[in-house]
Structures are given as structure tokens and as C-alpha cells.
């Protein structure tokens, strides 16, 4: 469903040049949740943006459902839903108006958009806030609205960038449940997060990024075998501080 071919991206000019992504390749299959893990500045968000065609890679390309990001960006946009914790909302629109607006942006008919809104509203518990203006929403409510916004057009591929940032326990649970639901109904999901516990619970495979490079990639079992560590936290620690183990 998603194939990443040697993606590279550099920001800035010498001497401040930063290699944000360095020749990264991986695949995500249908019905799979892929965890893109790494510390701040590892290049997670840049990879997601390159998949969407929002950043032009210096080399390499992403392929989504057979469409190459350097050739058919519009087609990729149509089959991908992207949700980021940094996304905002339109303060003066109601939740319903905003979601219907995004339905329009994705070329949905009004009836299809209404149907999608009803389904998402049930799944994400939005009924009570549908007619509230977005500027009065709490952080958790806003995050759920943003999640719904990225999924209005029922994309087969979902890119989630820190979707639980700033959420309380209940809010995190709602989002996690929904991600599990997405995988269950056959969507390909890439989850970029710092929350290793969540990732371990949800993801079938992982890619560990450090300084723009994919350090480890595979299932939990494969990672354990490769690193000799038990948990993602330990693996992470080994990647960030080589030669030490958690608890040393």
C-alpha cells in the first residue's frame, strides 16, 4: 500500500545544512499500523510530509497505492488522510461546518459528506459538539475533531503525526481505539509518535529513526532479536545513548 524508496531531504544551506532524512526506505501494508518512532528532529514529520507531497524530497520518492509522490501528488492526496497534533481548527466555524468544508475540499458530495460525518461522529463521540464553534472546544475535543477532519473522505491510508499529544487519558484512549479500528477495517496507518507504550500496543511493525536515518526496522520480535532489548523504551535508550542500558 505504501512504499518508501530512498527518501532523502536536506534543509538549509551550508554551513547550517541539516540532513533531516537520509535515504530511508520501508513499506506499510494494508491493515497494518506502522510506528515511526524517534526523538525530536529525527525526521518523522518530514517523512510524512514527503509522502503527502508537501515537501519535495532531494532524492527518492514515496509510492501510495501505486501513485508516485513526484508524479501524481493529487492522486496521493485523494487517498491519504493526514492528521497532526499541530493542526488547528477554524475558530469561528462550528464543528459540523468545518468537517463539511473538508468534505468539499476532498470532492465529496454533500450527501456523502453528511454520511461520513454521522459515522465519524458516532465513532469519535462528536454528537454533543457538532454545532459548537471550534474556539470553545477543549483540547481533547479539538483533537477528536482534527482526527475526524483527516478521515472525512474515508482514506485507505492514514498518516498520524503525534495524534495524542496534549490529550488526557480518556482522550488518548479514544484515539487509540480509533486507530485500532482503522487497522481492523484494512487501512494502512503510519503512526509517528514519542509515546512508545502506545506504539508498542498498537503497531505491528516499527521504524526507529535517529538523526534522519532508519536505525532499526521490523516487528517487535525482530527488534528484540536485533537489539537484545525487551521493550521499545530500552531499544530507544540504546539508540540514543549507545553503550548504556536503561537502569544502568
Amino acid at each position, binding site marked *: 500500500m505504501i512504499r518508501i524508496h530512498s527518501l532523502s531531504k536536506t*534543509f*538549509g*544551506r551550508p554551513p547550517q545544512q541539516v540532513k533531516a532524512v537520509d535515504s530511508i526506505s520501508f513499506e506499510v501494508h494494508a491493515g497494518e499500523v506502522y510506528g515511526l518512532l524517534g526523538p525530536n528532529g529525527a525526521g518523522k514529520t518530514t517523512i510524512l*510530509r514527503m509522502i*503527502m507531497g*508537501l*515537501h*519535495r524530497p532531494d532524492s527518492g520518492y514515496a509510492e501510495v*497505492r*501505486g*501513485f508516485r509522490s*513526484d*508524479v501524481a501528488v*493529487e*492522486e*496521493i*492526496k*485523494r*487517498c*491519504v488522510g*493526514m492528521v*497532526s497534533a*499541530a*493542526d*488547528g*481548527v*477554524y*475558530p*469561528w*466555524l462550528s464543528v459540523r*461546518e468545518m468537517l463539511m*468544508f*473538508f468534505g*468539499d*475540499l*476532498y*470532492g*465529496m*458530495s454533500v450527501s456523502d459528506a453528511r454520511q461520513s460525518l454521522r459515522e465519524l461522529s458516532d465513532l469519535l463521540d462528536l454528537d454533543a459538539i457538532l454545532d459548537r*464553534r471550534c474556539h470553545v472546544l477543549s483540547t481533547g475535543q479539538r483533537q477528536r475533531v482534527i482526527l475526524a*477532519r*483527516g478521515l472525512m*473522505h*474515508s*482514506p*485507505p491510508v492514514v498518516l498520524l503525526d503525534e495524534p495524542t499529544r496534549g490529550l488526557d487519558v480518556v482522550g488518548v484512549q479514544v484515539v487509540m481505539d480509533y486507530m485500532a479500528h482503522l487497522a481492523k477495517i484494512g487501512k494502512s496507518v503510519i503512526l509517528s509518535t514519542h509515546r512508545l507504550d502506545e506504539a508498542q500496543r498498537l503497531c505491528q511493525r516499527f521504524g526507529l529513526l535517529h538523526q534522519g536515518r532508519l536505525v532499526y526496522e521490523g516487528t517487535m520480535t525482530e527488534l528484540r532479536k536485533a537489539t537484545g532489548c525487551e521493550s521499545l523504551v530500552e531499544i530507544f535508550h540504546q539508540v540514543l545513548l549507545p553503550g548504556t542500558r536503561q537502569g544502568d
Partner: protein
Amino acid sequence: METPVGPSIKSFAFDRLFRLIRKELRETLRDRRTLVTLLLMPVIVYPLLGLVFHRFLIRYARTDKSPPTSNWVLGVESKEQMQMLHSALIRGDLLIKAGGVPQRREELIESASRVSAAEYGFLNGDRVDYHEYGSQPIQMVSRGLVDAAIIFRPSTNDNGSGTVVNAEILYRSRSATSLSAARFIEQRFHAIDLDDWSTRMTKAGVSTALPTQLTTRAVADELSPVFSLNSLIPLVLILMTITGAVYPAIDLTAGERERGTLESLIAAPIPRFMLLLSKYVAVVTVAMLTASVNMVGMAITVWSTGLTHLLGTESTSVIGLVTQTIGLLVLFSAFFSAVLLVLTSVARSFKEAQAYLIPLMLVSLAPGVMSLVPDLEYTPSMAFVPVLNMVLLARDLFSGAAQPLTAVLAIGATVLYSFAAIGLAARLFGADAVLYGSRGAWSDWLRRPDMPIQAIGLDVAMLMLAVLFPVFYLTSHANASFGANSPAGWLLLAAATTIVLFALFPLAIVWYFRVVVSSGLGWRSTHPAFLMAGVILGLSLWPVALEVVLRTLPTNLPEILASDAGVWRQMAASLEGIRSLPIPYIVLCLAVVPAICEELSTGRGVLRALTNVTSRRKSILASAILFGSFHVVMGGMLMLERWIPSTLLGVVLAWLAIRSRSLFPGILLHATHNSLMLVAGNNSGLSAWNRIAQEGHVPGTWIGIAIAVVTVIVLVVEKSTASRPR
């Protein structure tokens, strides 16, 4: 490759666009800050400004209406008339001083006779000096060289009772000093009249006629023109539309980034031009609303402070005034909203967007002030200067001096500039540099694609047209002045200009943006049947096109031509000169070269850019309108009657280009059509052509045959290409 999810949004659906506009308007109008901008000025600022302005004007008026000076300069034709007038004024003054008391009158005459006329002291200590005006009394008064002038007409007889002195007093309108000088003369002559009348009546009333027939006439005041609010209207329109558009423009562009919604917008598969167009319509609407509310506020302020006389408009109709104002509001709002969107699209924050406003204000106000410059002539070339063209149009409209040529050019140029600006904004909005704060933004627009693209973007196409239109007009105008001297050189120059503007320039753009010429320009072979269809259509369309031209020619054409005699005479001389040239040379320069070049640029290049964002039907229509609009300019003249036939031809050309997917059938159609018209027009021996010229109409059977042939060709082409995938 799998099928993407969801429908394509390539088609420019109006219902979707309407919903997008509605969202932008909701977002903007619900924001209290917009409401403050919308209402604060008219409700608070205008009444305050009105009061201040009123005080200023009262002060200004008082200066002009200060107590009449007691020393007037009066204009007379000659020294003899000066003596006659002075004597009459002294007599009249004595009569006024006497107040109708005979005894007092005798005493005063007696005392006056003891001093010379030059030393006579008028009532209230007033004094008069005289100045000879020669043959220009009106100019002398208008320019303030004399306060008032008197023109004596030949005297007439009054049934034997005596002669009647006929005279006219001239004074400057709007000058209290000049008016008081006129009153001074008038009162004294009136006193003489009454005295004579009274004397006659006393002598048994032999005659009832007055001995003096005196009239007064106001002439234009060139010395101290009174301030008119009209001259400020263009400035006010600039300020109002910028003020109204600025907040929504920032909010709907830079604001998207600040609130974190920009990335999700750019991640949606909607054409950015459509996105920007919806924002543009919203900004124009708010700018119009703000400006309208401001206008109403201003009107109420002007009316309530009693300043309506300062409007001094030539348009006496309120409906006309309102229509003009609304039209200008649309034009100003359309332009400034587009420019603001360009600036704010590149801004990364509210603060940065606001920083761009000061230069915009300064750049816009400079031409705005030009409306205050007296006697500034509005030439057609000025109609292509952004802002200045609208400012001068507003000035001329309100003074009733607007010319159709400059008005049409100004509106056309402004619309084109606005669309080009939206295209540019669409390219800049959400660019990598704006979205993520990396380097670039402006340079992103000029960035050469890494890989070949199938067609030029609509934004680039619009900018190309925005450059082409004024340059084409100006070069066409310059070439026309060359034509009368050397017709052969003129044609060569016209052909060279066409090649540079409509072929080399678009080809340079195509090369720079790595456009694939086969798809972007239709430079590819096609089935011979399409080429044949092009030739047949080129041979068949002329009766319809000619009939449309003949029917749309204005009935007062001679008067119109006479009013623009200079350019027309030049053009007629050039055309007459062309007749002496070899026909192949004429056809090459005026038919073949334009056909190839125009099909390259507006014909196929722009059409392909349009089909990228909208349906084929709408693309054909838009491309045809552009084609027609370019053809109304000929030799620096505006020939509006060419618009309809050229647009119709543009429809057929665009349709054929889309059906054949090639440039060449259109070139053949265009060249054949032009050549046929030129050959026929240059051959005075053609009896059929002469008959059309005499009757003023193309015979109905010819039109019928032409329509039948065109219909058959269209049906055959449509049927043969119906199964082709779109």
C-alpha cells in the same frame, strides 16, 4: 496502479466554489475584528471627520466671503466707456446716498460738482479702478484680473422717449469679491433707472419703458477654484477598499498558517487556484461591504454637515451616481483584494503581512493623488498603469468626462491584472517556504520544475496575458503611426511584433517551465480529417462573421470616427497603403503569421492551462472570450464590433483544438479565415463583395449555406471523436 479514492476535483464546479466561498465568508464575518473594521469607520470616524472638515470649510468659506473690499477693479472696453461708466456710477451713488429725497439729491450733486470725478468718494468709502479688457472680458474676469466687467451693447430706441442703454455685467462665480463688485455697479444703475423713471412719471408718464436694460452673468472662476469633494473620491476609494480587504486577506491566508490549518488545506486535493478564488471572492465581498458602509457613512456625513454643494458632480442623476460608485467600488475592490492576497499569501504571520501593507499603501496613494492634479489628461497608455488607470477613470466618471476607449482599456487591464494576481497568489499560497518557514517563497514561484510538466499553470498563463495585453496595445498603437508612411514596413513590423509577443514569449515560458510541447501546446500531428475540417471551417465561417460585424456596427459610426479622427485617419491611410502591396505579402503578414502565433499562445497554450482546472466547455468559453478581447484592439484603436465575431471564431478554434488535440487544424482554420477576408477585402473587382458593401448585409442564403456546412463539420467531428477517452 490502483484507483484513487474519491472523485477528482479538477472540474470547476460552481456549487462547490459557492460552498467554499460561503465558508470563507462565515469565518470572516463571524470574527468580531472584521465587524469592527466594517462598522468603526462609518459610525465613529466619519462623523468626527465630517465635523473637522466642516470647521475647516467654514473657515475656508469665510476667507472668500470676507467683507467686500472697498477697492474694486472694473473692466471696461475703452477709455471712453470708462469715463461714461464712472460718471454713471457717481450719479447712481449720489442717488443712493440721497435716498430718494429730492432736496438731498440736489445738495449732493452740488457738492460732488466741486470735486473732480477721480476724487469722488463713493458710499462707505468704496473706491473703483478701471482696467481695459480689450476683446477678452470673460477671460479677464475668470482669471481674476478684474473683479467685474461691463459690456455695453449698442443702444436701442425707446419709442421716441430716449435711448436704452444695454449692458451686461460679468463676475466670477463663487467669488464674493467679484459678486460684490457686480452688485456695486448694478445698484448704481438701478438707482439711475429709478430716478429717470420717477422723473418721467412726474412728467405725466409718457413712457413705461426703463431707460436701462441691465443683466448679470456669472462666468467660470479660474482664479480660485473652490475645493470639490469629487477629486478626493478616488483616494477615498483606495483607502476604503484596502481597509476593507486587508483584514480578511490576512486572515484567510497568513491566518491559516497561524492557526495551523494551512497544512491540512494544502494536503487536500483541491486545485489551489480554486481555493484562492474562493478566498478572493470572500475578500472582495468584505471589501465591498466595508466600502459600501463607508460610502453610506460618508454620504450621511456630507449631507448632515451641509457639504453636498462641494460634491459638484456633473451627473445629476442619483441612480447614475450610485451606479458609477458601485461600479468603481467593484473595480477597486477586485484589484486591491487580488494584490493583497498576493502579499498576504507569502506572509508567514499576521505581523509579517501587516508589514507589507505600508509599502502597498504608499505605492497606491501616489497614483491616488494624481486625481488632484488639474488638467492631467487621461491617455490610453495610462489605462494600463495599475491603480492610476482606476483613479483617473473615477475622476473622469464623476466629472462626466470619461472616454469609452480609456474606460474599456482600464477595466480590461484591471480585470486581467487581478486574475494574474490571483494566479500568482495561488502559486505562493502554501508554498514550501510559507508552510514550513524555509527559504524561498517568491523564488518558489520562479522555480523551474525538476520534471517535464504537461501544461503551463493557469497562474503563469494569466500572468503571461497580463503582460501581453498592455504590450500588445502599446506596440499596436506605435506600429499604426508608422503605417501611413510605409505600409510594407508597417506590415513587417506588425508581423514581427506578433511573432515576438505571441510566439517567442510564450515559447520562452514553455521552455522555462519544462512544458511538454506536444501536450502543452498541441504541437503534434493529427488525423488529416481534422486538418480538412479546419480548412473547410475557415472557408465557411466568414459569412456569419461578416454579418455579425455588419449588424454590430454602431449606427453613428461616422460621428464616432470623426471624434477620433486623428487615429482613424492614420489607420485609413495605412489600410489604403496596404492595398497597393502584393496580396501574398499581405496574407503572410496579416493572416498566416497571426494565425500561427495566436494559436500557439491564446489558442492552445492558455486553453490547455484552462482545461487543467475546469471543464472543457468552460475552458472553450473562457479561451474564446480572451481571444475576442485581444481582437478588439487594432492599430491602437478600440473596435468593439470585432468582439462578438472574434469570440465566436474563438469558440470554434478552441473546440477544434480540444477535439483534434493538435494545434495545426486551428492554425489552418484561422489562417484560411483571415486570408479569405483579406483577399476579398482587397479585391474591389469582386462583385459579390461590392454587393455586400452596398447593401450592408450578407445575403441570407449565403449565411444559411455557411451555417449548414459548419453544422455538418461539427457533427462529423463530434461523432468521430465521441468515443475517445477524455
